[in-house]
């Protein structure tokens, strides 16, 4: 028994050490929450797009390699959430200073019936001429939205209609991997901080 005592003491120390290390790991994984937005790294949706822009040129995520890309689905006749989200994006871009050059905003319309090239170009240009507008054709729209798990529904109002839709922005890292879901309620500072972390990741 006496012989084993120091050893047992040692194991106890090791045990304490392990507890300590795990506690530290625990702390690390807490502070690993370095993103303000929801980390969806490894998600099996939102893997990309292949859609015509306002000039009719087919664009994919690969076109923006080296940039952090924000993808937002919306529609031009939207009085509230779409301009709010786009304004947040342009404010975050400005907050990034020179790094903002490597932050690309992609707007995909959920209303291709009304959102023709000309109006999408003018609308996005009012926020930032660098924003990319993509216009799916009516036939492929359901598939595009489904691929991003984006919900949308036409709601008749007056003799016109509006759209209910997912207001989440998706953030891709510089390698084109989907990383973060940015809720509509996120503020400019949170979005800018998340983009900055993604831009600074080593590759």
């Amino acid at each position: 028994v006496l012989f084993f005592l120091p050893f047992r003491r040692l194991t106890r120390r090791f045990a304490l050490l392990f507890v300590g290390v795990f506690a530290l790991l625990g702390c690390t994984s807490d502070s690993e929450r370095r993103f303000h937005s929801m980390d969806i790294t490894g998600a099996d949706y939102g893997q990309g797009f292949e859609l015509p822009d306002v000039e009719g040129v087919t664009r994919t995520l690969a076109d923006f390699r080296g940039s952090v890309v924000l993808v937002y689905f919306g529609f031009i006749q939207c009085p509230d959430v779409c301009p709010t989200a786009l304004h947040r994006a342009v404010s975050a871009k400005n907050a990034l200073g020179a790094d903002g050059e490597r932050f690309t905003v992609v707007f995909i319309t959920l209303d291709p019936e009304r959102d023709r090239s000309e109006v999408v170009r003018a609308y996005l240009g009012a926020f930032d001429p660098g924003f990319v507008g993509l216009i799916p054709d009516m036939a492929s729209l359901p598939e595009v939205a489904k691929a991003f798990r984006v919900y949308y529904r036409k709601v008749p109002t007056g003799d016109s209609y509006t759209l209910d839709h997912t207001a989440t922005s998706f953030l891709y890292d510089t390698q084109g991997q989907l990383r973060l879901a940015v809720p509509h309620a996120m503020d400019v500072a949170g979005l800018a901080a998340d983009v900055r972390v993604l831009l600074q990741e080593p590759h």
Partner: protein
Amino acid sequence: MKKTFFSLLLVCGVSLPAHAQVAIEDPWVRGTVPQQQATGAFMVLTAKTDARLVAARSPVAGLVELHEMAMENDVMKMRAIPGLSLPAGQAVALKPGGYHIMLMALKETLTADTSVPLTLVFETPQGERFEQAITAPVAPLGAARMEKSGSHSQR
């Protein structure tokens, strides 16, 4: 002189009709680009006595509705509402993320630094209707429209 004073008030977006039953503060309309058919008007309403906002109209829009926006699981849902209760003395904000006056079938592009005439139709609890006209400045589409500090929207 008196006329100048009143038009100045109008420019400031403060309406002072004969009854002045509802104070309309800080109105603004989000600007549009050509071919854009719809946008929103925002303001803070404070009724002197209980009232409801039941309708609005504007010469720039073929159709005007009162809308409520709500987020559910990060899905934006927008609905026309029949009216908006304005309890006496309580500031009710029409602002992004909540209520707005939806201007549809726009007849012209709304450019920044112009203003839009709006007529608001209110109803008393007795069902009596009264109207107040204002002009709401157009805020640039792509620029920040800061909430005025000290606005009554925080109640």
